[in-house]
């Protein structure tokens, strides 16, 4: 206990310097935590995906459609429980900046396959009945201040023209990883409207199929059966688990994720330099004291404990402050970026990594000063000033 008291006394001897160092560590831990949370938000889609769902898309790439007629053939495949389909609409709400995912789906089977979208029974009824209706996530509705019954117009990019939709239902997610910023409407409305216009390549074509399988173990069997069924057809398919599908999106922007990861390492290195500097200066001032301690018979190990301990005390206090600040900062950040990152929450792992990083900083920062303090000869230490 005595040593702890000594460590604290030592750490707070130069209040200004220690205060500044605290501040530095707090900022570093805060930004490290936020960056890690941004990365995990990137993977939110992967985490939210279910093991019993498969996605079938055109094997060339996502921009090519699949015929609606595949639906029944897919349903006949052994192991398939239910099938839904949809198309990415890619509409813009007022301005390109207001990005949110908007999809046309077959609503009945969609809601069956995605039990994590929770709707009020009466709203669900209203949404299913109204072909022009749409349902939107709680976050999205709150962001634009829509109310049930409002008409929302999206400007089509893939399907030209202005499209009107009526808000019929607001969903909330079952858990935090569910994306509450989606805009989901009837695929039939899209298809009927296209049919009324001149011939359009996407009439009776869907962007992707979602397949529910009975057991997760069947996934690979079902996907190879489906893909081989459509081999050599006009639209060959590629079926993969929802997780793999989501992962491929993350992989495409992999360079950015890597960059953020690198940056979160760099911030630790920077703070290492700051703490090391503080420790170097502290020990430099106290060389005389260490010489006295040595004269009294304390060994190099005792001195090492003192220096490492002080470094630990400083970084740990800063680290705790940083962690405490991460929570309000994350809330603020998620409000500002809004729909770009659907799920923005701090993982427990991030907190552990925060502490680990602080420990690492404390240890590395103390190495050089300790070496210096241990090596100095008593006579030199006593003679030296400043």
């Amino acid at each position, binding site marked *: 206990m005595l040593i702890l008291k000594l460590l604290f006394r030592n750490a707070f001897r130069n209040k200004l310097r220690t205060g500044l160092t605290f501040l530095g560590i707090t*900022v570093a831990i805060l930004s490290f935590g936020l960056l890690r949370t941004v990365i995990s938000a990137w993977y939110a889609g992967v985490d939210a995906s279910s093991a019993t769902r498969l996605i079938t898309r055109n094997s060339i790439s996502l921009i090519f459609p699949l015929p609606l007629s595949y639906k029944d053939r897919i349903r006949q495949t052994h192991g398939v429980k239910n099938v839904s389909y949809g198309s990415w609409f890619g509409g813009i709400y007022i301005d390109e900046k207001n990005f949110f995912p908007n999809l046309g789906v077959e609503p009945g089977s969609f809601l069956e396959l995605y039990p994590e979208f929770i709707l009020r029974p009466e709203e669900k009824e209203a949404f299913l009945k109204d072909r022009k209706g749409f349902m939107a996530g709680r976050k999205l509705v709150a962001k634009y201040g829509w109310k049930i019954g409002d008409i929302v117009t999206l400007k089509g990019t893939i399907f030209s023209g202005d499209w009107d939709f009526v808000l019929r239902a607001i969903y909330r997610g079952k858990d935090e990883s569910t994306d509450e910023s989606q805009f989901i409407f009837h695929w039939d409305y899209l298809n009927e409207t296209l049919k009324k216009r001149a011939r359009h390549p996407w009439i009776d074509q869907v962007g992707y199929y979602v397949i529910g399988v009975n057991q997760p173990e069947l996934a690979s069997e079902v996907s190879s059966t489906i893909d081989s069924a459509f081999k050599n057809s006009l639209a060959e398919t590629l079926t993969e688990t929802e997780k793999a599908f989501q992962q491929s999106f993350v992989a495409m922007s992999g360079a950015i994720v890597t960059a953020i990861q690198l940056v979160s390492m760099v911030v630790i290195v920077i703070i290492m330099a700051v703490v090391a500097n503080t420790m170097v200066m502290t020990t430099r001032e106290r060389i005389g004291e260490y010489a006295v301690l040595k004269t009294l018979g304390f060994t190099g190990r005792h001195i090492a404990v003192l220096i490492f301990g002080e470094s630990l005390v400083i970084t740990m206090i800063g680290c705790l402050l940083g962690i405490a600040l991460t929570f309000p900062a994350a809330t603020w950040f998620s409000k500002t970026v809004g729909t770009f990152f659907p799920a923005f929450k701090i993982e427990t792992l991030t907190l552990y990594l925060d502490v680990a990083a602080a420990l690492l900083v404390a240890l590395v920062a103390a190495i050089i000063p300790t070496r210096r303090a241990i090596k100095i000869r008593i006579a030199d230490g006593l003679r030296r000033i400043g």
Partner: protein
Amino acid sequence: MTIPLSYNFRNLWTRRLTTFLTASGMALVVFVFAAILMLANGLQKTLVETGSYDNVVVLRKGSGSEVVSGVGREQASVVETRPEIAIGSNGQRLLAKEIVVLINIPKRRTNKPSNIIVRGIEENSLLLRPQVKLVEGRLPRMGSLEVIAGSSLVKRFKNIGIDEALCCGMGDWRIVGIFDAGNTGFSSEIWGDADQLMQAFRRPVYSSIVFKLRDPSEFQELKNRLESDPRLTVEAKRETQYYAEQSEMMAKFLRILGLSITIIFSLGAIIGAMVTMYSSVANRTAEIGTLRALGFQRRSILLAFLVESLLLGFLGGAAGLFFASFMQLFTLSTMNFQTFSELAFSFSITFEIIYKALVFSLVMGFVGGVLPAIRASRMNIVDALRSS
């Protein structure tokens, strides 16, 4: 009378380790600051250089990007007859009706598939893009299943190289040549005959129409004519503007990310500089007293400590820039959100970035040093002399 500069150099040298640690903290911050600016700059440079000022791109109204655009054959032939289009040396119109599709190809290193742009071209396409040069093999014969691939793709993607075959759209596409388009988006594309690709991918419409203007100043008038023509539902853009818009979102994302990161980082580095300067003031109390007793004014002391801190900042900034300039050797590839396809670009440094980074490092040095310098200048001579 001012204190000579050599005093500052010697001080920094005496406390080498501290100087090194503080400067390296700043160097890292400047490094990140410069690297991110270089990245955003490289991205924009790549996409802006892709277009030419006197070329015009015609897309379906409201589509924003070639990937989702569609212009029917009837509309294309209306555009084709405009008199503003330049005439080539053989008397042909310098216009190409192109189709753009995306295909999935796995990357060499990770085996993860990524979206690549396949551009269906006409013979004139090459005349319209003088920056595209064949470096290996030959050009594809029109009317055959032959394609050429951009040089950025060869290194990074599987099955892309001379005489290899790409399969999709019910056919094997043989790669007969590699082209290099310098630092432009075309280097990340695959080119083949437009009509063949339209057949294979069952796309009855063109994605875009590109042509060269007879006189670049006629653009505005032409744009108004095309967009008000009741037979057409298109919009026209200069090629340079079109590609600049394609990079807008990514560049903005990089800038915002970079800015917020550097602000946080620089806080850390400023604190580091402050710690150093405060302790160097505290250690030198007697020295400052002596200087004052010798007749140096408060102003000179303030200046001396500020100069020292600015020197620290400059050292850090120069080191950070030195290392950042090596980043130019790296090429990065990522998905461009707007076109949903792979794009390779490299870090690129400009004088503006160098200048900004140096100013930034000096500001860090100044902010870190100003409070300690004021403290040093306010010391009382007698107290300071007594302190040792």
